[in-house]
């Protein structure tokens, strides 16, 4: 029971995105492996097709800008619906009921804000990366370096969480060794990205989003059919197996500061994730960019409603079901632990409603999901290295697209190797804080600079650089001194900083810092930067100068 509780507590930190806790290797699962091999074969076919169409840097970074709004909406939803999110949120609902719903809602509400505030402006101003927009009228070298640094940090933290989750999940689902699983994911991701670029990455993501949504829909409908589509019957059965507490808010949101801070981290963090922002450059214009967010919000919201039903389905069909009971663990800890831990709730449910074949399907989809998400992350990280650091900072814009693309491919391979290495190093660490930290960095460094560069005429290079760095540092320091790292990871008895989510403090620090260091900046370049705002604003509002493949 202690282990289960520890798992639940660590999950509460960022359960939606990071699989944590010890898992045991399962026997080889042949039907899952067969279906996964089919998926890999099909996606490698797509990569081959995409490789022939990926000739220029624009093709590589943005799939030539020819993705439609609906396709991009599917791909964005796919980026967001990671395996950890599918298994983690359904596990949270399975373990704590209503808290799982509260948690998933936090992940959704950032999307409308992205649409209203940044989506079309981003499309109108940028080319390949969000640093294009952040540095639009500011000094390239310092701002690009900071934005690239923010991107790479976010991507690597996110990648570690995904890789460790992938290794554990694959161990559980397919019975492969942890190292083999991590290396397999890393190698496939390198293949997709280096050869197929954004086009392959997008289509892998779309196919996976379709498979995941179909599988989750089938599970939710199967559960509901069992209860004649009557929610009251489902809930009352679940309550009779656990208790009434699962129907009400629990301990997830306990004080107002944490509630607001978590909300800010999730909202602004989503609007600062480089792999998500990059997707807005794959569509042709602002109209398609808007449509993408509309479809993505609908699909993600629908997906969270499904995971809520799936979590309750697991309570009634998996919890206390002798077929899925971990007898060895029960003998030691008591209670009703399920095989492989709570994160397996959705997987066991797939077996309960659809037998071995459907279990294999859902397992293969979970693996596919990891592959698609890590590919998108790696592409975003590689773009920050090649487009921002190499082409803009080192070469000062004096390079051709082919050379830039070559650097991007080298960066992809390097990031892939780093991800495999870190995935193996962090195997037995509690990595629940990684995604939380990634969101905190994205919300505190990337988002404030991006947002103010679009909306505040008085922003200067000095303000963005100092304020952005201040936000980044505050976020990092407060996460380290907070309960998730100081207590859970480093093992100290009490946290120096009491809150799990530092965003309310670090985002404020960034905005205040940027404001203060901008208004006190009376240099000549600052005056020019303020002057350049008008032209930028007109382009961001109308898209004049942004059509087609614009160079600026």
């Amino acid at each position: 029971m202690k282990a289960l509780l520890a798992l639940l507590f660590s999950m509460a930190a960022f359960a939606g995105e990071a699989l944590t806790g010890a898992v045991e290797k399962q026997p080889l699962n042949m039907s899952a492996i067969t279906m996964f091999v089919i998926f890999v074969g099909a996606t490698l076919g797509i990569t081959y097709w995409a490789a022939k169409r990926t000739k220029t840097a624009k093709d590589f970074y943005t799939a030539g800008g020819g993705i439609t709004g609906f396709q991009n909406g599917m791909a964005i939803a796919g980026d967001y619906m990671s395996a950890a999110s599918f298994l983690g949120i359904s596990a949270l609902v399975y373990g704590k009921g209503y808290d799982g719903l509260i948690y998933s809602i936090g992940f959704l509400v950032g999307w409308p804000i992205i649409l209203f505030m940044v989506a079309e402006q981003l499309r109108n101003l940028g080319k390949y990366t969000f640093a294009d927009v952040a540095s639009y009228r500011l000094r390239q070298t310092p701002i690009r370096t900071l934005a690239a640094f923010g991107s790479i940090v976010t991507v690597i933290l996110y990648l570690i969480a995904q890789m460790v989750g992938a290794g554990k999940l694959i161990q559980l689902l397919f019975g492969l060794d942890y190292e083999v699983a991590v290396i397999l994911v890393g190698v496939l991701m390198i293949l997709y990205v280096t050869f197929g670029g954004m086009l392959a990455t997008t289509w892998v993501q779309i196919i996976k989003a379709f498979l995941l949504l179909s599988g989750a829909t089938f599970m939710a409908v199967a559960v509901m059919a069992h209860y004649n589509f009557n929610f009251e019957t489902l809930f009352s059965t679940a309550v009779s197996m656990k208790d009434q507490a699962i129907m009400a808010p629990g301990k997830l949101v306990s004080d107002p500061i944490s509630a607001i801070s978590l909300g800010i981290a999730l909202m602004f963090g989503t609007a600062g994730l480089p792999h998500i922002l990059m997707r807005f450059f794959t569509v042709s214009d602002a109209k398609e960019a808007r449509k993408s967010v509309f479809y993505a919000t609908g699909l993600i919201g629908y997906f969270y409603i499904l995971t809520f039903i799936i979590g309750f389905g697991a309570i009634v069909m998996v919890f206390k079901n002798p077929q899925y009971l971990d007898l060895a663990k029960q003998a030691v800890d008591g209670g009703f632990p399920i095989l492989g831990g709570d994160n397996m709730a959705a997987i066991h449910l797939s077996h309960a409603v659809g037998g071995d074949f459907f279990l294999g399907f859902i397992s293969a989809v979970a693996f596919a999901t990891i592959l698609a998400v890590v590919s998108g992350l790696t592409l975003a990280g590689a773009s920050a290295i090649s487009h921002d650091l190499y082409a803009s900072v080192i070469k000062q814009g004096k390079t051709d697209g082919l050379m830039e693309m070559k650097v991007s491919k080298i960066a992809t391979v390097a990031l892939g190797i780093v991800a495999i290495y870190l995935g193996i190093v962090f195997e037995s660490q509690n990595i629940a804080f990684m995604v939380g930290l990634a969101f905190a960095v994205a919300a505190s460094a990337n988002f404030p600079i991006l947002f103010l560069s679009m909306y505040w005429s008085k922003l200067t290079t000095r303000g963005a650089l100092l304020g952005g760095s201040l936000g980044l540092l505050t976020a990092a320091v407060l996460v380290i001194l907070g309960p998730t790292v100081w207590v859970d990871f480093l093992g100290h008895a009490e946290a120096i900083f009491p809150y799990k989510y530092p965003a309310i403090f670090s985002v404020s620090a960034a905005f205040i810092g940027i404001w203060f260091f901008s208004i006190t900046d009376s240099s000549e370049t600052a005056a020019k930067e303020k002057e350049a705002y008008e032209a930028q604003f007109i382009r961001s509002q109308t898209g004049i100068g942004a059509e087609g493949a614009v160079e600026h």
Partner: protein
Amino acid sequence: MKQEMVDRIKNDPDFIHLVKTRSSFAWTLTIVMLVIYFGFVLTIAFDPSILGAPMSAGSVTTIGIPVGVAVIISAFILTGIYVRRANGEFDELTAKIKAKAKGE
């Protein structure tokens, strides 16, 4: 973009109208979303029992369930409202501004 073009667009009444209506529309919807979401989580933070109350006497389903689902649906509806107006009215206005900027 040339300074002369910047000045022309900046003073175009259509541009001024577009910026004004769109930004007030976008901010209104943003505030609606923030009020819905923070209203939801702060209700939970201050008094979780409100959403934990049963829907009707004797039912297991709590008020929190439809409220939670409504927050999800509201996010989708708000994006729909924005996209509908932006892809129609705002884009037509933008096209007019662009035509004027190029034509003159």
